[in-house]
């Protein structure tokens, strides 16, 4: 264990960032906290209600449903995108024009705005005119994401995998490229199998980028809004209504700013806790390994 005290002078250099964060995040967060304890009747008409909105939101069955769906969705996203991203990064060319071409092709989905991604998949998956929808139906498999909850889920998941796996691929590719050639030479001399090279060289060396990839993908998928909003509108029924969409329904649809603020804070605390657990677990394992 490192017994030296930390030198905190460097924190002074972080002050400008702190100011920006204060304006862009802390002040809005404070406002949300203020709203969460009031019934907002108009721009300058508010009544203090204490913890009433928190009680209401915490006991709302629709919130419980959206929360469960959100956890399942984020779990599926991580289970699919992380292994798939690693697998694709491992098979990508290492040098030459092929490497540049692959990088550009892989990065393309990342450049497309969220709402456009939703629109693309809405058209692509339509069972009457969409290429994928018509193809699947003509194979004899009934597929209609507007009427079947399973199909809607599948479409949203595939869309997210298509849109965001490239980020995992790029991060893993960068991690793989940073491994010195000497490691591979040593493994070759020892006669290590491809699996051993992956398990004992590539995977440990990718841990840091994977930490970032898992955190980014978890937080992003946990806050997903635009794509399912455009693709399924949260339906059929509430099948693809995730937390953000439920929040938007309360805040913008019903204009219940108090309950929406209380909901936002609970949402924030859940993301904060899960991200902290992920981060602490991965960095802790990293430090244990370094010893």
């Amino acid at each position: 264990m490192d017994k030296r005290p930390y030198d905190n002078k460097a924190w002074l250099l972080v002050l400008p960032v702190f100011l920006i964060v204060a304006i862009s995040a802390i002040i809005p967060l404070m406002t949300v906290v203020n709203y969460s304890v009031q019934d907002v009747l108009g721009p300058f008409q508010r009544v203090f209600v204490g913890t009433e909105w928190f009680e209401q939101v915490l006991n709302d069955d629709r919130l419980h449903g959206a929360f469960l769906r959100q956890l399942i969705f984020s779990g599926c996203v991580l289970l699919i995108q992380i292994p798939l991203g690693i697998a694709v990064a491992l098979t990508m060319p290492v040098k030459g024009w092929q490497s540049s071409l692959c990088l550009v092709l892989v990065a393309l989905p990342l450049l497309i705005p969220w709402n456009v991604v939703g629109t693309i998949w809405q058209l692509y998956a339509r069972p009457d005119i969409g290429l994928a929808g018509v193809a699947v139906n003509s194979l004899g498999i009934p597929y209609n994401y507007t009427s079947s909850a399973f199909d809607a889920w599948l479409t949203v998941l595939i869309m997210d995998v298509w849109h965001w796996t490239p980020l995992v691929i790029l991060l893993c590719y960068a991690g793989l490229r940073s491994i010195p050639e000497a490691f591979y030479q040593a493994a070759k001399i020892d006669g290590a199998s491809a699996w051993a090279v992956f398990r004992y060289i590539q995977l440990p060396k990718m841990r840091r980028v994977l930490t970032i990839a898992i955190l980014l993908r978890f937080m992003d998928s946990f806050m997903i809004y635009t794509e399912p909003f455009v693709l399924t509108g949260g339906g059929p029924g509430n099948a693809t209504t995730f937390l953000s969409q439920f929040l938007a329904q309360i805040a913008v649809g019903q204009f219940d700013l108090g309950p929406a603020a209380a909901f936002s804070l609970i949402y924030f605390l859940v993301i904060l806790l899960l991200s902290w657990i992920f981060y602490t677990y991965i960095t802790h394992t990293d430090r244990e390994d370094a010893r």
Partner: protein
Amino acid sequence: METLAADLEWMAWTGPTAAFFAGIALILAAMTAWQTVSPTIERRGFLPMPTTRGDRLFIGLLGSAYIHLAVIGFTDLNLWIAFGVSLVWMAVVMKFG
């Protein structure tokens, strides 16, 4: 003072939330002063990983938020009980965490 209050009208301040944020600001200021006078040394207590003083404060505050949510959402207990339990939790984490 009135101008300042008018400027902050859009933030919809209330007495309890102002007191809450003042409390958080005071804790952060006190922790900064403590850090300057006696820098933290990472150690391991009952928590499953080594922590600095700041880590323990974060864990304590996050735990307190969840204690309050649990009391509000799932019991009929008074909020001051949640506050008391949080203070105990905070003290335990800071001392033995």
